[in-house]
């Protein structure tokens, strides 16, 4: 049984290894008093999951795998308000009644929750095949689950009460495919903080000196090494206004996290696409503009260029002269973008909208194409990828 659980964890994308599985088994062996499912839950998590970002996924797989078991031994099921379940069933069985309730209102919300739940289960389903096993009992029972509302009502109980901890999914917001909080952003940006040894020799290399002196039969031979310092320089281009307004908060978090990470960090704003000028202070965007060309002359090619924007606009805003929504631009946005990208070989674009939505707007594809597909979603995993690309030696374009 546990072997299948182990396989399901792997399928769910949690990097578990046989060694860890064996250590779980020996832990189970040592602790003969593992009596409840909760003990197993904790022990298995302790030995198999090594990253709190995977806790949520683990919770889901665990719930999926052990749900049938729990139901068989009676436990949670009885604690649920039966009324709810009965209602759901009748609703499904009886379209007229459903229509009635729908007219009365209130059902929509219920259905919405249910739909969401079902789509979630689609995800879980990928992890294994247990659902099929329990399917066929009743339309909703097939998915073996109850709308969130029921569970929330119960969740007040403390641990060891009827509610199963893995169903509370407390670690949801630690999953790395979700959007970011400041802490997560910092974590990802730290990847950029690379210590490179550069510059003049300035520090006494004690170990080297001793080794060299010993080899020199006691004659002092001083060795120096360059001092460590952070050499990562970053240019941030932030999209403001228009379609970005809802993302501004996320961007600001990214920005404030970035500030403390680099010695050299310059940021400028643009709207939708970069044209001949950008601005540093959003309040004075119409007065204090900066020529993009001058900007490129000021900051050398060793800067890493990071765009943050949703790249959602009319395609003409990128492709045509005069396409900008704000002013008349003599040269198309694409020309300016290419200029920047050529000047700064290290560049990425971070997009705060989820990857699934990118296909809705033609402009995203156009922009991604300009960037040589170096566009990443603004999630922890996305930033991780982006930072890795930034650290790679520059590809000649």
């Amino acid at each position, binding site marked *: 049984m546990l072997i299948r659980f182990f396989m399901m964890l792997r399928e769910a994308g949690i990097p578990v290894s046989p060694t860890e599985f064996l250590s779980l088994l020996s832990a189970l062996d040592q602790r003969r008093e593992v009596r409840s499912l909760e003990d197993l839950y904790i022990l298995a998590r302790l030995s198999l999951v090594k990253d709190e970002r995977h806790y949520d996924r683990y919770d889901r797989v665990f719930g999926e795998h052990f749900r049938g078991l729990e139901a068989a031994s009676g436990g949670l099921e009885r604690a649920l308000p039966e009324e709810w379940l009965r209602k759901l069933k009748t609703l499904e069985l009886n379209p007229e009644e459903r229509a009635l309730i729908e007219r009365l209102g209130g059902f929509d919300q219920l259905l919405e929750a249910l739909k969401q739940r079902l789509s979630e289960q689609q995800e879980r389903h990928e992890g294994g095949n247990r659902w099929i096993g329990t399917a066929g009992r009743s339309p909703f029972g097939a998915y073996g689950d109850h709308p969130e509302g029921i569970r929330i009502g119960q969740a007040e109980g403390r*641990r060891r009460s009827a509610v199963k901890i893995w169903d509370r999914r407390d670690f949801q917001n630690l999953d790395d495919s979700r959007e970011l909080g400041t802490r997560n952003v910092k974590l990802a940006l730290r990847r950029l903080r690379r210590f490179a040894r550069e510059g003049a020799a300035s520090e006494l290399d004690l170990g080297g000196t001793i080794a060299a002196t010993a080899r020199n039969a006691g004659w002092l031979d001083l060795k120096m090494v360059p001092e460590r310092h952070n050499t990562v320089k970053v240019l941030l281009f932030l999209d403001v206004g228009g379609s970005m307004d809802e993302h501004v908060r996320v961007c600001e978090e990214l920005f404030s996290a970035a500030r403390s990470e680099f010695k050299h960090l310059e940021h400028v704003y643009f709207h939708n696409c970069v044209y001949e000028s950008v601005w540093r202070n959003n309040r004075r965007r119409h007065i204090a503009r900066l020529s993009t060309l001058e900007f490129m002359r000021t900051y050398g090619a060793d800067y890493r260029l990071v765009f943050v924007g949703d790249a959602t606009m009319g395609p003409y805003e990128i492709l045509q002269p005069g396409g900008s929504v704000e002013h008349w631009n003599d040269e198309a946005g694409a020309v300016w973008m290419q200029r920047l990208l050529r000047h700064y070989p290290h560049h990425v674009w971070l997009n705060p909208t989820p990857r699934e939505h990118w296909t809705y707007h033609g402009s995203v594809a156009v922009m991604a194409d300009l960037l040589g597909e170096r566009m990443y979603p603004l999630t922890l995993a996305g930033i991780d990828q982006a930072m890795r690309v930034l650290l790679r030696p520059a590809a000649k374009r």
Partner: protein
Amino acid sequence: MQADRFSGTERYVATPDLEIAVTAAATLGRPLLIKGEPGTGKTQLAEEVARSLDRPLFDWHVKSTTKAQQGLYEYDAVSRLRDSQLGDERVRNIANYIIRGPVWEAFDAERPPVLLIDEIDKADIEFPNDLLRELDRMEFFVYETRQLIKARHRPIIIITSNNEKELPDAFLRRCFFHYIRFPDADTMARIVDVHFPGLKQALLSEALQSFYRIRETPGLKKKPSTSELLDWLRLLLAEDVTPEALREGDGKNAIPPLYGALLKNEQDVHLFEQLVFMHRRQSR
């Protein structure tokens, strides 16, 4: 194996899953990796485990410049060089210049010890990889004296991390992992009770309310943590603040007294003051 059972102490409240984690790590002799928000008592855990199981504690505090080798031993070549210039007799025996690190001390302990490797993420990325064999087999080799050091008793190893760097997979595979969650209100009340047994109930509940309210303030750079709450309570007690004073201006409008202990960031303080100000204007 009952002897290794850990269940909190009079100074430290451990949740049931943490108890299981520590007990399992102790029984199976595997390192336990602890993560969690700053201020949730990661480092303190090791001290309390040592106290409650009555074992000696060896503390290895890792910094950004720490090398794995330093935990095992160091060869003090410089003093040997100096001694050789002065013609000291000691110079003939290289063992005189081997300085033991905390891992060696722990391996050599008379009774089964607790070894704390604190903030492992601060060190170089390769640091954990350099300790694989030591943690796995509990032995290492001293090249200078050609000596194999083996642990007399398998220590309980507790490793803390603040998530500043990703730890390598090979290392993680050898550890148990536990994430200390931020305590919920009930656990927090128990924690406070352990630290301030005489605290008046009214003051405590008012203080906890303000505390969780501050934590929920959107956009804070650094949310106040358990240790900051404890500091703050200490201040409240010292200043003899009454529960009424905490409740003053009821709910959202009040700036709790001495809140400097909770908010450590100038921008946060500023943000918080602004929010309170806004609430006041709205409610007028």
